[in-house]
């Protein structure tokens, strides 16, 4: 597994390994041996890498680590690879709202021709003693609302239809 760090806003892939005697920082292009020793000061460390010795101070937060070195502070953020690499969620959204189970329509919030935003409530259904609000899968214009308040519907019936998106 790789780690992705965000150093002052720029993303960098790297992985810290250990070769048995010291730490090795692997980047996509090279491997750098390095050593980090506490100096006794709060958050103080001595970094040795590529023959260079640097004094630095570290502050570790839940979201990012702050490295103070050479009179400058660098913010190093950790990016979760599973999140970073997942891409956009869910893929293409549907034009239709399909009944997840049989039930009854409790209320209808929109009518054909209305413009709706993604996540906007379209109608409320009741099934098995539970009221569920169904929301617009994407922004668009309502084409059809086939059921009125009090109507029963079956599994996989279409409860709302958005007008097709223009390319």
């Amino acid at each position, binding site marked *: 597994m790789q780690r992705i760090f965000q150093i002052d806003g720029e993303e960098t892939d790297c992985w810290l390994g250990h070769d048995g005697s010291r730490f090795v920082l692997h980047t996509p292009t090279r491997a750098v041996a390095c050593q980090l020793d506490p100096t006794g000061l709060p958050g103080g460390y001595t970094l040795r890498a590529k023959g260079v010795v640097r004094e630095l101070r570290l502050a570790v937060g839940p979201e990012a680590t702050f490295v103070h070195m050479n009179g400058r502070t660098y913010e190093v953020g950790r990016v979760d690879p599973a999140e970073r690499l997942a891409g956009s969620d869910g893929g293409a959204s549907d034009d239709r709202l399909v009944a997840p189970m049989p039930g009854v329509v409790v209320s209808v919030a929109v009518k054909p021709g209305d413009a709706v935003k993604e996540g906007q409530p379209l109608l409320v259904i009741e099934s*098995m*003693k*539970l009221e569920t609000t169904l929301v617009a899968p994407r922004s668009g214009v309502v084409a059809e609302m086939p059921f009125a308040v009090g109507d029963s519907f079956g599994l996989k019936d279409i409860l709302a239809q958005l007008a097709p998106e223009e390319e």
Partner: protein
Amino acid sequence: MRRIESQIDTNAADYKANYAAMSERLKEFHARQHAARFERPQRDIDRLARQNKLGVRERLKLLLDPGTPFLEFSTLAACREYDGTVPGAAVVTGIGIVQGREVAIHANDASVKGGAWYPHTVKKIVRLLDVALENRLPVIHICDSAGGFLPLQHGVFPDRYLGGRVFRNQVKLSQANIPQIAVVGGHCTAGGAYVPTLSDYNIIIEGTGAIFLGGPPLVKAATGEEVGVQELGGAVMHTSVSGTGDYRAATEQHAFSLAREIVSQWKRMPKTIIETASYEEPFYDPKELYGIIPKDRKTQFDMREVLARIVDGSRFHEYQPDYGTTMVCGFAHIWGYKVGILANNGVLFNDSSLKAAHFMQLCNQNRTPLVFFQNITGYMVGREYEERGIAKDGAKMLMAQGGSVVPKFTVIANASYGAGNYGMCGRAWDARTLFMWPQAEIGVMGADQAANTMADVKIRQLQREGKELTEEEIAAIREPVLEKYKRDVEAYTSTSELWDDGILDPADTRNALGISISASLNAPIDDPHYGIFRL
């Protein structure tokens, strides 16, 4: 592990309305809890002072490590029984820390009816000792009881899970090498005499503590012998003559410091090792739960929003996020302990039941404790679902859940209706601890459905007899049924009857689970094994 990204808008009108409704409920809940713990008639407080005894809460303070949590069980037990005159069922139980060790505590509350055992008192003590057995927790008994409440002796004494079970459980604890101490700070009469005598160690407080099978009045009646409390069963007699008592304490303070010293002598047993991570507070404020739980129980809500306010760092690794989506399954940490979570996001369908069964097997295989968050109105009904075998898929879920060897914990977060309660580890399914939120309901079905069903039966019966009913007459049949049922399914009824281990302020859920999980690791985890799955 990734953080749940909350979609909650804390400025939305819904959120604010929910928050206000929950705050109202919690105000009532905290007031009732405070009353059950501390409010007593003056004469009872005076009596304790006259007898030179400390109250049960002061005793706990002397016993427990300062600044450590005490997970009190069923504070509102019996709140709907005996006209509300027996707060907490006259006994305090819970899990606390003594000398750095987790212990189960059973302490009579002599400020309530002299600490007499009512039917609900016995139920509460037996439950505590079951908790001690399941989790292998040492027990500290603080004895100060007038004995069984005689007018209700049939509800205290004869049945399998009544009085005798207290002593039977003490024997089973001893047999399982789980130590017990009794601090005798009042009378232990008749059956009550067996609590200190079945404990490995007991301490009797001079002047107030006494143990005897029959008290002075009974002895006088039985044999004519006249004898005082101290000669018959006081601290000096028992610790120097009969050997029934082990330690004599000059004062209450002395007694509890002795008890603490005894606990520190015990061998520390290694706890079961499960996966852990470093402790992290939830990223989202647990108090936001008040605005997330809908004020109308029928309104659906996303359990991930609830989990985000309970688990470490609000981090959740969701399992099968796109399959059987009414059942949310995944891994998280609570107080650093890795847990597998099952939470309802709607009715249980075939796919959601199978997903739950599969996930529970996964958790058993890698020794991950299970936490259930119930908001369940049941398994889906109808021809389509019966044909797909909903009953047999539900059976698989029960087989996996009931057959689980890892510790289980249940939070009834909203609805708990019908077989859904079973599948999601309701009371009968041995959750190590089970808590309810104040607005939650438990019943065979929802109040409206039950009232309609019962009213329909009655109406059809009348119609068969040839009676025509008006709307008003139907309402007159339905209303009282609905009123009664609504009360019966409330959390206060459940907690009064000890169908749970207490009602929780939702914001306290994380800590209650943390203590429960930590305590459960005093017991080993068996290798996974199951019954037969109907495939």
